């Protein structure tokens, strides 16, 4: 797998390049918004990928609470961390798109506010994992992850339930999109999923290494002769 990693990185970077070419060159220009609408090809796939990763975090947290399986705990951590990265992209590209289209950077409507709350919940999850020294940290984090996951459907369905500044969903729910644009959107989502898979795999390996190091250090400390006593 060590040898395959650079090839995988190359393939993912090439696919991301192809997806960007599709988004910036091949996709037709929007008649109303002009070229600025092309932000959709990064904004929407980032949100979908973040939702998927938070879903993985939720399932892994439930599994951890039921079985105390260390692998499930690691998967939960990885899902949350990479999910926060994609959610950050979504929260940054949104206002950049909103400014030329709505005339404002931000508005406190349900979709935008619930997305910000979602990001803050998972950020607090990561801070809990990073700074808490309690032995119960994985359990507390898993419980927090379950509460965080409750916000995901609220974010997703908010534009169906409430009247918001945010437009209707591009797939289902009353929204519509040109099939050529939808094709490019799905290509970009697939490319983002490949990137997410690569990041998750790297982060998982890193966490595995960290735990291995901690175990070795603990073992060394136990075996060390107590010369001063």
């Amino acid at each position, binding site marked *: 797998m060590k040898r395959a990693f650079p090839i995988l990185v190359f393939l993912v970077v090439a696919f991301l390049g192809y997806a*960007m070419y599709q988004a*910036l060159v091949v996709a037709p220009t929007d008649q109303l918004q002009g*070229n*600025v609408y*092309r*932000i959709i090809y*990064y*904004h929407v796939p*980032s949100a979908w990928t973040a939702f998927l990763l938070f879903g993985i975090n939720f399932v892994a947290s439930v599994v951890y609470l039921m079985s105390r399986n260390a692998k499930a705990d690691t998967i939960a951590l990885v899902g949350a961390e*990479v999910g926060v*990265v994609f959610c*950050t*992209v979504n929260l*940054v*590209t949104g206002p*950049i*798109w909103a*400014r*030329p289209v709505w005339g404002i950077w931000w508005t406190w409507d349900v979709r935008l506010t619930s997305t910000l709350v979602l990001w803050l919940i998972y950020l607090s999850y990561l801070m809990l994992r990073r700074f808490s020294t309690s032995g119960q940290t994985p359990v507390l984090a898993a419980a927090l992850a379950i509460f965080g996951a409750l916000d995901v459907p609220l974010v997703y369905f908010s534009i169906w339930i409430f009247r918001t500044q945010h437009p209707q969903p591009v797939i289902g729910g009353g929204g519509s999109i040109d099939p050529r644009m939808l094709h490019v959107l799905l290509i970009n989502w697939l490319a983002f999923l490949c*990137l997410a898979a690569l*990041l998750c795999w*790297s*982060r998982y390996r*890193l966490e595995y*290494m*960290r735990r291995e*190091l901690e175990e*070795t*250090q603990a073992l*060394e400390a136990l075996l060390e002769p107590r010369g001063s006593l």
Partner: protein
Amino acid sequence: MKFLYAAYISTWVIHLSYVGMLLRRYVRLKHEFEELKK
């Protein structure tokens, strides 16, 4: 166009910053492993 470029550039800045963070963590862990072996 400047908003479009700003969105794309900020996306890659965020992703590359995260990749950089992972690389730094990897280098530090590898160094700690080597220290432990000595």
